[in-house]
């Protein structure tokens, strides 16, 4: 049996200005990205944003139309997929139906000419806690078990980078939560770079150290879950990660570390460090849970009306209409400060300046909203 020689590079994975065209359609557009060695990285975006194409280019299943991919100092752009020290957990697991679980996991080791695979395979099976299933065939396993085997089959090879293509997409919610924690544990245990592609923002936020939000073949913003959530740089990111209220405002003054803005006769303040645009037209962003149903702050809107109310257990979610007919979402924690308002009640809104952020006003207010679960 021919033994496949696999490159043994270590270091950061660097995508340098890669593009991928299918005919005229641009799936990935001049994308540059550095993924630090040993990190848990998520590529997050709606379907068709180019995240899977990016992953497939790293795996060697697609060739970039332009740009280079390297691990450490080695350029792997044109290296065949079977020579790359990169393994993939496929979306539908793609286990070999004709091989036992043991042989599925041993597949990669055997291809590299390793004779004594038993210990390694058993270690991998124990890592995913399925040691007792080694003699079964994939069809005899449940979806969650197959998913773990797919992870074991990739990890047993100790790749430099492990790619996960929507690995939890086919599982039900409860199992998905469980596997998220499991994958995080495995990543910490083996210390391999994980690149996780997903359209589920909650999944990305739960698991990844760093998230890159992708939209239309480009990276909108990259950072930790907290950074992306608390200080988004674009309307798309603000809307795609959680819910967000965006209000069109005009800049009145920029001084003393504050940007004073106004909308329909109301003035608000945003800390200058949280404004990512020098335009006069801005979008003022504030998350629903940061809004309070009171009126004693610097930033407040009086004479609003409750138009919808839904109780969701930990909080009550209100839709509140401003005097200029803009609907804002407000989450109120269900504790002693609860207002318990009804539809039609008059109410005021207020928030703290440090919870707001200012975005370039030339963007679509609804970019990225309602995209996350439409698959």
């Amino acid at each position, binding site marked *: 049996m021919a033994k*496949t020689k696999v490159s043994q590079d270590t270091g950061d994975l660097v995508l340098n200005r890669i593009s991928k065209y299918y005919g005229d359609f641009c799936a990935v557009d001049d994308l540059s990205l550095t993924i630090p060695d040993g990190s848990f990285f998520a590529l997050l975006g709606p379907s068709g944003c180019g995240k899977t194409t990016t992953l497939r280019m790293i795996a060697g299943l697609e060739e970039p139309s332009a740009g280079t991919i390297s691990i450490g100092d080695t350029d792997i752009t044109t290296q065949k997929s079977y020579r790359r020290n990169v393994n993939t957990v496929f979306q539908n697991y793609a286990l*070999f139906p004709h091989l036992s679980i043991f042989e599925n996991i041993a597949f990669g080791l055997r291809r590299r000419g390793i004779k004594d695979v038993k210990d390694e395979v058993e270690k991998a099976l124990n890592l995913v806690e399925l040691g007792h299933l080694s003699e079964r065939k994939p069809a005899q396993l449940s979806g969650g078990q197959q998913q773990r085997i797919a992870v074991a089959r990739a990890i047993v090879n100790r790749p430099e980078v492990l790619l996960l293509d929507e690995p939890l997409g086919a599982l039900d919610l409860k199992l998905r939560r469980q596997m998220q924690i499991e994958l995080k544990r495995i990543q910490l245990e083996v210390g391999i770079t994980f690149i996780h592609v997903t359209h589920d923002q909650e999944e990305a936020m739960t698991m990844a150290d760093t998230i890159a939000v992708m939209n239309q073949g480009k990276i909108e913003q990259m950072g930790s879950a907290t950074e992306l959530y608390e200080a988004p740089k674009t309307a798309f990111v603000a809307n795609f990660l959680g819910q967000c209220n965006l209000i069109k405002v005009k800049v009145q003054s920029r001084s003393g570390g504050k940007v004073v803005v106004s909308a329909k006769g109301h003035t608000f303040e945003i800390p200058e460090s949280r404004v990512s645009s020098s335009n006069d037209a801005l979008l003022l962003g504030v998350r629903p849970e940061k809004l309070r149903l009171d009126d004693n702050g610097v930033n407040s809107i009086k004479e609003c009306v409750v138009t919808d109310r839904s109780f969701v257990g930990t909080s009550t979610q209100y839709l509140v209409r401003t005097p200029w007919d803009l609907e804002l979402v407000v989450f109120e924690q269900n504790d002693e400060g609860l207002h318990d308002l009804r539809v039609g009640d008059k109410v005021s809104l207020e928030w703290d300046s440090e919870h707001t952020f200012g975005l370039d006003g030339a963007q679509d207010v609804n970019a990225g909203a309602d995209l996350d679960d439409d698959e």
Partner: protein
Amino acid sequence: MAFLHGATKSKSGGESALKKRSLTPYLLLAPGLIWLITFFVIPIFSLASTSTMVRPQGAQIGTYVQELRFANYVDAFLANQEQYVRSFLYAGIATILALAISYPLAYMIAFKAGKYRNILLVLVVAPFFTSFLLRTVAWSQILGDEGPVVTTLKLLPFFDDSIRLTATPFAVVSGLTYNFLPFMTLPLYASLERIDPRTLEASGDLYASGFTTFRKVTVPLSMPGVVAGTLLTFIPAAGDYVNAALLGNPSTKMIGNVIESRFFAVVDYPTAAALSFTLMATILILVTLYIRKSGTDELV
């Protein structure tokens, strides 16, 4: 009373519905069963009984009486060993050739043909639109002494002018291969097409080169098609007599030709029946061994 009457009625109604439901599978089976009993089970018993008959001394040709003479089998087999061996040899070669031709073809249609897939499949089946007999006669024209193949071969330096293709084993095996090719291609295509291309990608991802992926993933996953295709080719090819009759000569006779001439020319029914049974039994044994050996029970 009226109430009671109604209750009884509804009860009997329920029972008859139950009875009807339990009859349904049998009713659905009936046409097939009647067909098989009339045209397979009864004839096979009649054939079995014919195979041990004997022609009484001085009786007319075609008159046989039952004497349970099992020695008929031994006599028939000993007299036609050569044709038996030839039948299985020719059928075996034709099956291997058909597999060698069909595998790349089916692979191409399943994985590479894209939008031409359906056209190619129609082309594979297209020969069935003309009669089996006509197609075989056409082969004798193509391979004939004045035909295009022989004329071309004669132009080549390593063949002398006496070269013939018709009435040779080559022609018979070619005819068999050609005639049963779709029976090989279609099951192969069906099993290749079912392979999830992502398992092939996964194999490449797990350090298997293209050729290793083919050997370790594609071939094992297409085994149900290989087994079905080889059986569908080998079984009819082993019993075929048309190709040997139209493309062969007396020394390329297969067992089908012997059975045919015993039945229709010599009117020796017992020998023909004994030969048929021996052929059937041999094929059954070979097929059983083959399926056991290839171990595809789990995959089919």
